[in-house]
């Protein structure tokens, strides 16, 4: 059964190849069949492999295909490695990916680039699967860059609009900065361990690099650089809001559910290295805490529905980083999974809304859609409830609760981190329900452009169910003894043990975070339904603050001064290459001497005699003087 892993990866690539090469010869239904099928089959295979694997989750499955390249002791193979961590990611990528592909059949049906779209989407799924299944870091890097390329192509999918082209470039360049840091990290690891195979590295690191040693610190910082780039965390988060230029299914798949969590995967995958660098771990937690606050507050002021979701994604990945930083590995991965369900759902539902509103992105021009689009509303509400972590009934509550509790009670937790997370929970609830109330409530009534069909509704409903129920596989132990998820993940990742074991305290904390959520929802209700003039008034009154938040704490402006201006200057200065001037000068001086000396060759004997005499004089003078 396990050898099927190779096919899971193969099908999306085959789909890509067929669509890329034969795009113009295929009918639309053929394209849909190939595009969706090449993700659907892997989804089924994953179920098969997964069920098989669940019976015996101890141990890993390696599938070797061919040796990629070999030089010195560097010999990475095209080899796949399946363990619980990888399986969870593969499951999300194929399963959520399949639903999004299905949705796209209807969503993209009137687009000229239909075949191109599915080709890129398949390529993305294939690359993402390589990323999570690679058994060595070079192969992982192949997937890592592959998803980056697809992200670039899909952000700039409507490439005739210069704004989209710019956004695509920004995403590629910013993540590439992180990637370069990561690749240097790979060189460092290779230089010291003579291998880049993940399992071998993880086994060798603790013996060779002491906890807190400078090499372990550097190694993990360099990998962290890659992770913050890909996962849009501080300070490289700036590309994600712009990435919303891509079609909504792209935002759902790449910029919410899968690719942006690659950084989380990378850190979890190399957790042994990070454990040897406690300072960096603390840094990861702080980055997560800061990012979740910065992005959360930015989401509060956005008017573009996709931008709200983008900032929310950055903020939620911040939670995952927070969890990673405090060593709550399982909680981070759990939140990744739940987030993939509800955030994909929210983006897909938002996409349907945008389509119905004639490509209007501004929420404040919507309103009252609850009655016009009931299924969209209810599924969106389910996703939103999960995002806001409505207590007890939503999956988001359980995943977020685990992070918050461990950020306080975990070995590396502290009250500041918990406070940031809890404040974030309040903010999350506010911006989420602000989105709901503004978009779906209110007195406005709009003609909707179209009614979503089954291909759009089914994925939404499935995801809505998962956003609700996925939480019940892992519950806080003071509530019920269910730990299916962490029990499974612990074969890949060490278990995080709370240092404080007081059920009473845990109840209290759960109560506080529940209150935060409910309070946030009420605040949103109060401000956007009961007293909608208030926010407008504030927007006027504190316009500078609002602008500051609207632009995501003005990081773009900072980078314009720090990076873009210098680079532009660098590209404009010395366009002609000053070194060339040196050679031109050489040529010119030769010519100058030439014209000068030619003048002496004038055929007049007088000149020649005088020249000879002067020469004699000069020589005599030298002889006498020296």
């Amino acid at each position, binding site marked *: 059964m396990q050898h099927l892993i190779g096919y899971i990866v193969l099908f999306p690539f085959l789909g890509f190849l067929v669509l*890329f090469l034969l795009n113009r010869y295929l009918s639309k239904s053929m394209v849909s069949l190939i595009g969706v099928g090449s993700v659907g089959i892997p989804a089924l295979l994953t179920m098969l492999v997964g069920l098989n694997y669940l019976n015996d989750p101890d141990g890993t499955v390696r599938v070797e295909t*061919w*040796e*990629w*390249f*070999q*030089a*010195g*002791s*560097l010999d990475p193979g*095209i080899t796949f490695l399946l363990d619980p961590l990888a399986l969870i990611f593969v499951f999300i990528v194929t399963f959520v990916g399949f639903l999004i592909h299905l949705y796209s059949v209807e969503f993209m049906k009137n687009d000229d680039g239909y075949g191109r779209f599915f080709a890129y989407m398949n390529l993305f799924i294939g690359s993402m699967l390589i990323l999570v299944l690679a058994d060595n870091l*070079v192969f992982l*890097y*192949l997937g890592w*860059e*592959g998803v980056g*390329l697809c992200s670039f192509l899909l952000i*700039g999918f409507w*490439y*005739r*609009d*210069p704004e989209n*082209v710019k956004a*695509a*470039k920004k995403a*590629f*360049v910013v993540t*590439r*900065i992180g*990637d*370069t840091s990561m*690749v*240097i990290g*790979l*060189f*460092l690891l*290779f*230089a*010291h361990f*003579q291998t880049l195979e993940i399992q071998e590295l993880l086994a060798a690191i603790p013996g060779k690099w002491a906890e807190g040693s*400078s*090499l372990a610190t*550097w190694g993990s910082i360099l990998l962290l650089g890659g992770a913050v780039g890909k996962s849009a965390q501080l300070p490289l988060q700036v590309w994600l809001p712009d990435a919303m230029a891509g079609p909504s299914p792209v935002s759902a798949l790449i910029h919410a559910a899968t690719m942006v969590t690659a950084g989380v995967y990378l850190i979890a995958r190399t957790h042994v290295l990070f454990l040897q660098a406690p300072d960096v771990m603390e840094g990861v937690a702080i980055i997560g805490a800061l990012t979740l606050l910065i992005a959360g507050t930015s989401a509060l002021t956005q008017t573009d529905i996709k931008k709200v979701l983008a900032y929310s994604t950055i903020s939620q990945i911040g939670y995952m980083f927070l969890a990673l930083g405090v060593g709550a590995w399982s909680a981070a991965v759990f939140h990744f999974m739940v987030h993939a369900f509800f955030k994909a759902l929210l983006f897909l539902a938002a996409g349907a809304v945008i389509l119905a509103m004639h490509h209007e992105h501004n929420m404040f021009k919507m309103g009252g859609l609850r009655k016009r689009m009931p299924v969209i509303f209810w599924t969106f509400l389910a996703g939103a409830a999960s995002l806001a972590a409505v207590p007890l009934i939503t999956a988001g509550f359980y995943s977020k609760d685990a992070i918050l509790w461990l950020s306080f009670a975990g070995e590396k937790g502290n009250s500041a981190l918990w406070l940031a997370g809890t404040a974030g929970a309040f903010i999350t609830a506010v911006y989420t329900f602000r989105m709901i109330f503004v978009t779906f409530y209110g007195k406005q009534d709009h003609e909707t452009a179209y009614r979503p069909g089954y291909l759009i509704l089914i994925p939404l409903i499935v995801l809505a169910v998962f956003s609700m129920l996925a939480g019940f596989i892992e519950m806080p132990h003071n509530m019920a003894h269910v730990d299916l998820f962490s029990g499974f993940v612990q074969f890949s990742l060490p278990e995080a043990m709370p240092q404080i074991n007081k059920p009473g305290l845990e109840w209290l904390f759960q109560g506080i975070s529940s209150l935060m959520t409910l309070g946030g929802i009420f605040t949103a209700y109060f401000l956007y339904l009961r007293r909608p003039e208030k926010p407008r008034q504030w927007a006027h009154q504190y316009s500078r603050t609002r602008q500051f938040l609207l632009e995501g704490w003005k990081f773009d402006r900072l980078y314009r001064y720090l990076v873009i201006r210098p*680079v532009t200057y*660098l*590209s*404009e200065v*010395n*366009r002609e*290459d000053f*070194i*060339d001037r*040196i*050679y031109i000068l050489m040529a010119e001086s030769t010519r100058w001497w030439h014209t000068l000396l030619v003048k002496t060759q004038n055929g007049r004997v007088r000149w020649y005699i005088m020249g000879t005499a002067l020469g004699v004089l000069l020589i005599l003078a030298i002889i006498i003087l020296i």
Partner: protein
Amino acid sequence: MTLLTLIGILMIGGFLAWLSARWNTSLTRWISLMACGINLIWTLFIWFGQHSVPAISAHGQWILEYRQPWIERFGIQFYLALDGLSLLMLMLTFFLGFISVLVSWHQIRRHAGFYYFNLLWILAGITGVFLALDLFLFYFFWEIMLIPMYFLIGIWGYEKRLYAAYKFFLFTQASGLLMFLSILSLYFIHGAQTGVYTFDLTELMETSLSSSLSLFLMAGFLIAFLVKLPAVPFHNWLPDAHTEAPTAGSVILAGLLLKTGAYGLLRFVLPLFPEAVLEFAPWGMFLGAISILYGAKLAFSQTDLKRLVAYTSVSHMGFVLLGVFALNQVAVQGVVIQMIAHGISTGALFILVGSLQERVHTREISAFGGLWTKVPVMGSIALIFAMASLGLPGMGNFIAEFLILAGTFQSSVFFSVMAAVGLIAATLYSLRIFQQVFQGSPSLRMETLSDLNLREMFILGIMVILIFWLGLYPRPALDTSQKTIHGLLQRSEISAIPGEDPPDHAEAGVGIKIQEGE
């Protein structure tokens, strides 16, 4: 004898092509295509055959060897030999030669006979350079490839062709003369020491040189090779020559001529001056890293598309220089892949720029925009090669750059990190090539643009397949050159091969150096 025939086919083919042009230019093209094709197939056969021969070492054991006395009075021999490294280079030569003939198919109408004569003679010269083991013979071929190239740029080039051709000639000629001085000095010193006057590389390697003399003589070779490579600050002939040359000329320049510089470093400089190389290594890596960054910076600055692509060569060849002087197996294996991958990817970019210029008669980047809708196939292929040039994994350039940087990291953390910054710069200029031309709002003057024709698709299709093959399964290429590289590094008595060198001593250094680098 095979080796001589390979050169002979190109030279005779050149004459035949010239003669046949009097009657029928189509015959000329077919003769040229055949000459390259036969050689290509022949070398492929040698390549497949050599897998059964287990040992290909750098010196002593050759796949093929040909040795005849030439000018006996001066100890000059006609000494050609083929090992894994030169075999790879020959396959690249004949492949790009084949491609160049196809590229010129309709583009060259003026003096077609003389054109193909020059083309084939350049290839003959390059073949000789890749095979010669007698230093005099090497210099002879080095000059042979120069003169027809001068004509190729000067006669069939674009607007500023004469200026570019002069510049190319002067740079290469001047630096070549310095190398010739070094060759002669080596010849006389060796003769004085042993009484045997010979230009045979394998014997000249045994010459004992004082360290200052060795540095001095190495400098002569180095300058010739660094100019060819080219390394900053000797690169200035390149942008002009590449930009003004006809498309096939640019392909050969970037794909092959530059490689002769890299090949020379590996084949001659490393074995002849092992100690001096070790002393020069940090400077070599420094020049390499500078070339990567400065080349990328200039590439990004250009407004002329072809010139942009030309400057990317400076940046990419910087990796070669960096890798050679990292002096370890991993890096130098990467150098070999870089030579092939750069030959293909940059060659393809020049072909794309050439076919764009044929269609719209401009190279100004700002004149383009939004072409993808009009020419989807061309756009997709441009995307592939732009990605290759920024080092996307899956394509050959990535393998090369990864190996070079990983190898360099073991020799010098600082230069490795410095060069890795070049990857970001490469992203900037590569995206510029693709996005400025093919994305964005469509420009109006592109109404009548036609997509690639079958001939162009065939050429570029093969190149796409090759660049992916090199990226996904480079083992055949790596294996072919592996033993040669191993031998070259061992010959230079440099034991920087990873695994043998205890990493403990590196550890202390790395920690310190990183801080400098960051």
